[in-house]
């Protein structure tokens, strides 16, 4: 072997080594896992998260391996599921509030794995991020549409649990509806479940029987939409996704949770080694809250709604702008004042003035 050849081989080896080191920190595909509270077939909350996961796969192709687990109950078993995933994945998304404590426990044991907890608020270790969306911006839009489209002036609201996120939604929808229709009334029914098609359908029927001709929900299935479709003159809104297939003549629009771009950014960050613990609360402006096509309404109303969406996106409209009082009459926001995320919005535990129902507990 000549000296020149040996040198070439050495140079080539050195070059390869340097290239290998300086290229992506993860040459192997990133392994991302998603824990769902319900079935992807709910076409609601879980479906939207799954669409986000699919978005990541679409954009990263072979650079990512995705595992999803459906219908994981919020009990002590979830810790085992999350642990199993932590052993084999680089980043885990736990998509429900009830996974908070198991997520925290597992995160403490697996410091090199990243955890993203949806709708949570605790980040005791630096490998946990929390994220949620300003859904109340979406509620503002559907509230205004409801106010304009209703003939009976009664909105029916199917609510799950009296937690801040749900209360925010109710308040935002009500305020928006009231701003375009001072005679509006809202009836709220608590079903104490996130997903139970039978119960949701019963709740929708009960609300309609009591005079509601617009149905809003903070539950995860398409049941209420099918009831609205069945009933003459009743409209509804898609929850977390476009439920138009279940309500071709009754869906006005739907609030779409668009998790895709956020998920892609986080998984990419793991790949690039730039992931850091964060708290995200994005809305229309950042593209996390989107809408199904406006349908079943006059064209000018649809355009008006689109303009309102842009206005929120540009910051001209904030759904919680004073003067607003609490249900008991005490002042909350002064004229022109907008509600800060913390503590007002994130720990919201009161109805705004004008809502007749008694606050649960």
């Amino acid at each position, binding site marked *: 072997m000549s000296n020149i050849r040996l040198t070439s081989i050495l140079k080539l080896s050195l070059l390869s080594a340097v290239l290998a080191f300086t290229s992506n920190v993860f040459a192997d595909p990133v392994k991302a896992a998603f824990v769902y509270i319900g*079935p*992807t*077939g709910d*076409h609601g909350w879980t479906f939207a998260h799954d669409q986000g996961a699919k978005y990541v796969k679409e954009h990263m192709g072979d650079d990512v391996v995705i595992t999803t687990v459906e*219908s994981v109950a919020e009990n002590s078993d979830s810790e085992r599921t999350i642990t199993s995933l932590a052993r084999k994945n680089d980043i885990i998304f736990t998509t429900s509030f009830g996974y908070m404590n198991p997520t925290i426990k597992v995160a403490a044991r697996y410091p090199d794995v990243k955890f993203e907890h949806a709708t949570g608020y605790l980040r005791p270790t630096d490998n946990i991020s929390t994220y949620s969306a300003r859904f109340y911006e979406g509620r503002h839009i559907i509230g205004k549409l409801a106010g304009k489209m209703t003939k009976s002036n009664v909105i*029916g609201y199917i609510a799950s649990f009296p937690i801040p996120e749900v209360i925010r939604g109710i308040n935002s929808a009500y305020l928006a509806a009231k701003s375009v229709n001072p005679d509006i009334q809202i*009836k*709220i*029914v*608590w*079903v*104490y479940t996130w*997903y*139970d*098609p*039978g*119960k949701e*359908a*019963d*709740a929708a*029927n*009960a*609300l*309609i*029987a*009591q*005079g509601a001709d617009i149905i809003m929900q903070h539950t995860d*299935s*398409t*049941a209420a939409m*099918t009831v609205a479709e*069945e009933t003459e003159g009743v409209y509804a809104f898609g929850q977390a996704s476009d439920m138009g*297939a*279940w309500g071709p003549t009754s869906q006005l629009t739907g609030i779409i949770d668009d998790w895709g771009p956020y998920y892609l950014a986080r998984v990419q960050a793991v790949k690039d080694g730039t992931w850091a613990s964060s708290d995200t609360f994005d809305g229309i402006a950042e593209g996390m809250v989107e809408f199904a096509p406006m349908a079943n309404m006059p064209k000018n109303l649809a355009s008006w709604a689109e303009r309102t969406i842009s206005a929120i996106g540009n910051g001209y409209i904030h759904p919680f702008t004073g003067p607003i009082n609490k249900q008991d009459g005490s002042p909350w926001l002064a004229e022109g004042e907008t509600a800060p995320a913390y503590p007002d919005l994130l720990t919201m535990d009161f109805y705004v003035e004008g809502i*007749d*129902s*008694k606050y649960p507990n």
Partner: protein
Amino acid sequence: MNESLLISIIIGISIASVPLIFAAIGELVVERSGVLNLGVEGMMIVGALLGFVVQFHTGSPFIAVLAALLGGMAIASIFAFLTQFLLTNQVATGLALTLFGLGFSAFVGRGYTEETIQLITSTHIPVLSDIPIVGPLLFSYNPLVYLAFFMVYLVWWFLFKTKQGLILRSIGDNHDAAHAIGHKVIRYRVMAILFGGAMAGIGGAFLSLVQVPIWGEDMTAGRGWIALGLVVFSSWQPFRVILGAIIFGGITILQLHAQGFDIRISAQYLSMLPYLATIIILVSLRMRAKNKTNRTMPNCLGRIFHSTT
């Protein structure tokens, strides 16, 4: 409260009670023959699954309901074979049936959670349905609703107006004596169990075909267990099953409406009432005079029949 709201509430309660009526009337016959089948939940969910799947593939509600009926009978036959021929413990076998039914339906149904089918809630009978008030209240239901009420009548007629019904009841009260007279204890019980399975199957299909056009694991949500309590609540009397089903089914509906009216009774405590009422009824049955034998529990309920030949 205006009348259309009242009508809505009554219709809602009627629809909620139908699956319970089917499942309970079937189990009533089984228990009257002296057998306790705790597998009602399993049979119902299999019916719900089969009804949904068959409807999805064939588009024919009739075939779907038939499939659910046969499916319920099929898995009930496992219970019948084990308890009547292999003399296994009824409690354990019934529980195994529930587990198996729940698991089997979830397993087979895994591909169907994203599908939807045509909802078949109401029918329109010319002229009759259009009568104000009475029309929607009485004449616009899905055929299965009418079938449920008819089955209750049919079971009553069978048990109390036919010879075979009398024999079945006597088997339930004293299987040894009935056997001594020459009645085929095992045969009657097997037929009863199969009937119970068929009814539970239809009851389950009602959920996935009429109430909500969706399939989901565990969509029966404990209705099978409620049906078991219903049978006791009704003191093993067919017509009382309707009363009980309306109460059990109605409580959820009423509780939702109460919220709409902002009536502040805790949902949980209200929901407890039917179960507590069942227990109270059980006690009062015992406290009553024992000479009305058809008002008490079939004596041989749950006991294994040992043929001596």
